[in-house]
């Protein structure tokens, strides 16, 4: 196999692992709601963490 082909294979496998496996099964964004819902979630999180810290 030429270098070019080897590299294409590596790039495709890497992108497949990243976007079809890691992104789909392990790295779903935690904040999936509307902007307002996300803002409320983060506000609640930061308040809750500050309450725990105190």
């Amino acid at each position: 196999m030429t270098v070019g082909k080897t590299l294409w294979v590596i790039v495709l496998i890497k992108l497949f692992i990243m976007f079809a496996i890691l992104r789909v099964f392990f790295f779903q964004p935690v904040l999936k709601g509307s902007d307002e819902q996300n803002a409320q979630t983060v506000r609640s999180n930061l308040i809750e963490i500050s309450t725990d810290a105190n």
Partner: protein
Amino acid sequence: MESVITLSRAQFALTAFYHWMFVPLTLGLGIFVAILETIWYRKRKQEWMDLCKFWMKLFGINFAIGVATGIILEFEFGTNWSNYSWFVGDIFGAPLAIEGIFAFFCESTFFAVMMFGWKKFSPRSHLAATWLTIIGATFSAWWILVANSWMQHPVGMEFNPDQMRNVMTDFWAVAFSPVAVNKFCHTVFSSWSLGGVFVLGVSAWYLLKGQHIDFALKSIKIGGIVGITGILLTIFTGDGSAVQVTKVQPMKLAAMEGLYEGQEGTPLIGFGIVNPDKTYDNDEDPMLFEISIPKGLSVLGRHDLNAFIPGIKDIIDGKDVIDGEIVNTVPYSERIERGKIAQAALRDYDNARKSGDSEALSLADSTLKANYPYFGYGYFNKVDEAIPNVQLVFYTFHLMVIIGGYLLIYLLIALILAYRKPHLLSAKWKKIPVFPLIALVSIPLVWICHQCGWAVAEVGRQPWTIQDILPVGAAISSVSEAQVLTTFIIFAVLFTVLLIAELSIMVKQIKKGPAESID
């Protein structure tokens, strides 16, 4: 929770560490290849074309293996660091979008022309594509470093408690903050030095083998110029970085030097052993052993022999220097109090919002805004929670400086020999091929130097994800330890496989030599 934070940080560090194995070589080798092609374009001699195509092939291998490894960092932002990710969303949106445009539309397009377009484009167009590839790569790095610099020194923004985001109010202040400009220059120039050291190392291998001698010497001459230019500019911008850190992140500077109590005319520790028992509030000596340069830190941080540089204890007590005068700033105990006031105001704001009480909302908003600069300190209960890992920062900083100093001497000598006494490059001393061995050992050293630099920048600003505003403990998502551990292992395996692939393909190409790279 602590273990999730530690694991998430370790995972981010691992990803960034591997990503930075590829990026500086792209930037450093890229400029070298562009210079070689320019020489060929002007001279039109086959030997320069051979040089250009060989190094371009190594550049292409590194580019292909390393491409998109940085996207994993963005995955981690959204999953492991969702509070942080949302909090900075408005600031990061613009730079990362511009980075994407540079990376995918400029860099990648011209990369294709550069690699596959020798017979399809005129020499002038091909040369333009090569330069645009490296310019695109460099400017895509700019925007990533703008985002990183904003975390180190948040400017050009205002916190909006409705959106729960830091909203950008001044794009230019973010894009051209002195911290960002310095960080960009320091990073890019140090990548040039890495590229130069890599070229010298590979060329020295040919000298060691007695193969492609003329090719190797030409590579050393041009690579040496790239390397020495890079290291000199790295030192110059490193000085600028030190001034910026002194100004905006004094705690990081104090940790870099293991400095607990400052003084006027503060010495710079050239080499030392940190006392692990030292804390900011005990009387232990901070160093078990040290060799210092008198007044060095004052010169480095403030360009003034007698300037006061605050130590960790001074900073915690609120003692700093502004315009040459020792003044009292806000002590950390007060910052913690004001941070807690800001957080209580956010809680009141949330309650007022839910109950529709506009008067309470306005009061909470003004209290929050008045204390927002200390918001993150409210997550601490003790002042020492705001101190980074002094030992790690100290040792990585000093290792970086020592290796950097070594690289300067090495590149300078190599360049002088290449132009004045090239036969000495392959000469043996007591049957030992000195230069080739030094050149080969220097390859891993330059990478270690780079990684140490990033460790200083990132560990030195702990516990903050955003300086003074959001510590790591508040930035984290509620993800499980098992999930982070699993992905940590996957990343470790994936990146190690990629690195092995890169090394084996490169070594194979290097063994084939320049002749094999000619179409």
